[in-house]
């Protein structure tokens, strides 16, 4: 009966998304409570799925009782379960973060829950067209959230994302269409069986190309990433924390699904150029993203380009398609979500308390906000890949996979990506801890209207950024509570703790890998 958890994972947040709107009459807090309860339920459901998959099951649920391949299948296996767990955990964490940090409009929580449902849907669907639908739900909710900051720059960023994201989704659906024309089915497992033997047919190749480019755009792989730095930078800090952790993550997960489940390794053997094309995109993305991150001055932009680089690594891992590399890709996907979410959360807190938005603003903040800066340092070092951390684990498996597959360029790029990551993380650390005292901004007067725990009982419209006195920065979270700091610290603790969880990941993904590499 555990397979019932699968439809519930999607249905609960989508239905609950209506609640904040209706409950507006109850007060401005009602939306938050709806979101909190829903995400808590999601965590429970995700735990059920994770436990079942860890026990060796492959959960399958035919939606509405229609059997595959005609009906839609929901699948929980070693590839989707870690992503589901990540989505649930991060959703709950960000909701906790938003209690004090805002935004507080009930409409925000509606979009937020829709996004949760969309992300879950992409992760557990076993049907390509269904995946497109959930990708669109994800995309639309994300456009709305990016624009929720209501500043002009966030509006432009959201529009850019909308235009490009729609192109990506269209490419994906064109690819799905080609696949459907070639095989007459949309179920992933069924597709993989029917595609066998016709890998080099032109519609099949075109289908792969369209899908990969479409999903690559959603995952923000260079040079399809142009929407991403603007969206991350100009969205409000809470939103950035959430979408940076999850949205591109499910797109990268979709790439893994398409490569490993739909097209399978046999496709790569029949059409090696396809593999090389993906690998080339991915490795270029790693290097270009890293270099661009190093030269950024604004923190959020730097972290955004860092994601371009890290997703290049993940896509490269899936394109390598060896057991080690795929395991590394899954681990790094989960790890990147936690690390990047934690980094953006820490950056949000520093922006709120010190108005720090650029690398130079970070001068000596390590001594003024030791806990948050320390968390940022731990997460940054984990992102570099310093053990013990999940960042190390992921990169290690990917590197081992590249070496064992004999694809030396990728192995070398993994090494260089570590160096580049070190370069931009070291810039932050140097500012935080070793900056010349003269470079530090003068300690601001504590503003009387910024209490720590709660923003007051007034029916506040939104975003009255307390720290940025010049009124230009509407992205800043409303206030900082110790709970927000706690969530951020918790992210760092989990990141380090998962560094010891290599056997857990191996058990989790083992059955899935067994199916792919049989």
């Amino acid at each position, binding site marked *: 009966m555990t397979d019932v958890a699968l439809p519930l994972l999607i249905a609960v947040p989508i239905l609950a998304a209506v609640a904040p709107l209706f409950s507006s009459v109850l007060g401005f807090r009602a939306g938050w409570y709806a979101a909190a309860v829903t995400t808590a339920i999601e965590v429970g459901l995700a735990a059920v799925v994770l436990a079942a998959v860890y026990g060796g099951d492959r959960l399958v649920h035919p939606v509405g009782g229609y059997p595959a391949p005609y009906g839609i299948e929901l699948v929980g296996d070693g590839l989707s379960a870690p992503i589901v767990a990540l989505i649930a955990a991060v959703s709950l964490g960000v909701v906790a973060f938003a209690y004090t940090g805002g935004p507080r409009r009930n409409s925000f929580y509606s979009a937020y829950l829709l996004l949760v449902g969309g992300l879950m849907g992409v992760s557990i669907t076993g049907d390509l067209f269904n995946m497109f639908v959930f990708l669109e739900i994800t995309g639309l909710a994300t456009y709305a959230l990016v624009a929720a900051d209501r500043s002009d720059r966030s509006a432009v960023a959201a*529009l*850019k994302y909308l*235009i*490009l994201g729609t*192109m*990506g989704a269209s*490419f994906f659906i064109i690819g799905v269409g080609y696949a459907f024309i070639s095989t007459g089915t949309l179920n992933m497992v069924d597709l993989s069986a029917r595609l066998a033997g016709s890998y080099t047919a*032109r519609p099949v*190749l*075109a289908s*792969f*190309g*369209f899908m*990969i*480019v479409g999903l*690559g*755009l959603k995952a923000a792989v260079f*040079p*399809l990433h*142009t*929407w991403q730095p*603007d969206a991350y930078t100009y969205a409000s800090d809470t939103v950035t924390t959430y979408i940076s952790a999850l949205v591109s993550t499910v797109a990268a997960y979709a790439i893994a699904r398409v490569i490993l489940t739909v097209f399978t390794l046999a496709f790569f053997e029949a*059409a090696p*150029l*396809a593999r090389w*094309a993906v690998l080339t*995109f991915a490795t270029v993305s790693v290097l270009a993203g890293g270099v661009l991150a*190093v*030269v*950024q*001055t604004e923190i959020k932009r730097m972290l955004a380009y860092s994601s371009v680089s890290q997703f290049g690594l993940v896509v490269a891992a899936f394109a390598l398609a060896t057991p080690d590399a795929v395991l590394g890709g899954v681990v790094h996907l989960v790890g990147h979500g936690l690390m990047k979410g934690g980094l953006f959360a820490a950056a949000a807190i520093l922006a709120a308390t010190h108005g720090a938005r650029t690398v130079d603003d970070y001068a000596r903040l390590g001594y003024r906000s030791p806990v948050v800066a320390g968390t940022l340092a731990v997460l940054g070092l984990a992102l570099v890949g310093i053990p013990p951390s999940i960042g190390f684990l992921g990169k290690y498996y990917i590197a081992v996979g590249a070496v064992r597959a004999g694809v030396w360029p990728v192995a070398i790029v993994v090494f260089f990506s570590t160096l580049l990551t070190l*370069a931009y993380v070291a810039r932050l650390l140097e500012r935080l801890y070793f900056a010349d005292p003269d470079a530090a901004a003068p300690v601001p007067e504590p503003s009387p209207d910024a209490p720590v725990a709660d923003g007051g009982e007034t029916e506040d419209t939104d975003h009255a950024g307390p720290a940025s006195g010049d009124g230009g920065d509407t992205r800043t979270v409303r206030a900082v509570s110790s709970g927000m700091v706690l969530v951020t610290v918790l992210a760092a603790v989990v990141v380090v703790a998962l560094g010891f969880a290599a056997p857990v990941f191996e058990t989790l993904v083992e059955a899935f890998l067994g199916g792919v590499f049989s």
Partner: protein
Amino acid sequence: MVTETIPPFVPVLFAAIVAAVAPRKVGHGIGFLATAAVAVGSLLVPAGTYLTPRLFGFETVLYQVDDFSRMMGIIFGLIGAAAVLYAYSSEADGTQTAAALGYVGTSLGAVFAGDWLTLVFFWELMAVTSTLLVWHYGGRAVRTGFRYALAHGIGGSLVLAAVIWQYAATGSFLFSAAAGVVGPIAPALMAIGIGVNVGFIGLHTWLPDTYPSPHIAASVFLCVYTTKTGVYAMFRAFPDGHLWIAYMGGAMAVFGASMALLQEDMRRLLSYHIISQVGYMVAGVGIGTTLATAGAFGHVFNHILYKALLFMSVGVVIYRTGIEDITELGGLWRVMPLTFVSYLFGAAAISGVPGFNGFVSKGIIIAEAHKSVKNVVIGPESVPLGGEDLLWWLLIVGGVGTFMSFIKLGYYVFFHGSASIDPEDARIGQSVPMLSVGALCLVFGLLPGVLFEVLPNTAEIAEKYTTYTVPHVIEGVALGTAGFIGFFALKGPLSRATWIPDVDRVINPTVFYGGRVLVRAVTESWAAVDRAVVAVASSSLRVGANPQRYAFEGARRLPGVAVERADGDGDGEIDLRTSTGTGVLLVVLSLATVLAVLLL
């Protein structure tokens, strides 16, 4: 039995710790007792393999007794006791003797090791403790000690490399796992590494450099342990000998004696003679027959006695006069009769005068070179002295050189005009060890059977070798006569040839300046890399901080590109942020590329 459970290095190292902290008298007393006990214990302990712990997951043998290690233990303990007594009377302080006892203890650890890992462990510690012993004296000894440490660091590393190679080849560190060192590379590494310790020509420069520089009592310790442990290890590595090693030994015999002839510093002269005498031992090990090996070990035993005796006698002269240069001395036989007698015993023994112990062991090696080596035969057998191998000739010439240089040393120090100074003779605490050791030199020379009892392969030596035969005695007398004639004939030319340098005149500056060049090259090229990296990084950061302005400046310098400042003055900029349109273009281009690659 207590002798079987306590390896000899334990009491001696314990004594070293005591000597480091206890008052001088107590420390020396404990040191004397410990070393004497080791000599007695080594004599009594039954042969066998004791203390076999697993260290670092390897089988090791910390304490293995056979005829070879037993003999080393006896003589190391015996001479250690004599040297501690001598050091006490020569006003050596407790710390120095502590270092010396540490050196003795680690040497004992090395010769009683039953596997290469233990041996190389103590081998390296020997280098450390002996360096400390040299350094303790300060002054010039600091520089020579540093060169000593460098040489032994390199040698020890080579030995270590050979040991690892040996392990890789045989799967065990134990001596019993293979007959010596096996494989193509390991023996070469081992020979060169041990060659540093025994003073192969070219690798010997540390020896005459270091031994004359520290305290006189320190020299007595130094002349005993390092080179003899090297000979012992050479035997363990090449139990069946090796022809090249034999010839190297012969060459060392001649080279050491010739260089010694040119020296005017007393202890430096004796140091070159260590090379020469160790040459005989190396030749014996290299020849590899049972008798030659026994002769080599006999020479180790005897050499330790008379060389320590010579260093002690010369040390007393330095102790009493403060002079190290033989040309400034003379006529001392009247004022220092005890010292003169000890020197006479030592010189007679080292030169191989019949009746002294050197004659016995050197005779065995020369006889084996005569009998067993027919490799590079010089001249037909029909002519007198023809049909002998090159090795035999080298050993004979080395013997003549030995006579000549000890006649020279004795002549200049004890005769050579009348004494211009009136120093006192040796102290009682110096005389006792000197005369006892001198007596042993005579006893073992007159009763070679007693010596053979201590040596390995006793039965075979007794059966195959008779010490006092007419040809042997004639050979000894002939060598002595040649030495006398040679010295007095060449006295003038020799005293004018003392400027002839050793290879260290080239090696030391080469190593020093070569090392400096290497260090400079490494640091400078690293600094260049560092500067380049910092330049690239900082310029990237500068460009990255304001890419739009740099793009403008770059475009302005391009020929044929016209850019305008947006507002007429100030810094020009080009908007580099990708617009939505550019983004769409990039996406379409990417898709086109992918499709082109896949479909065409």
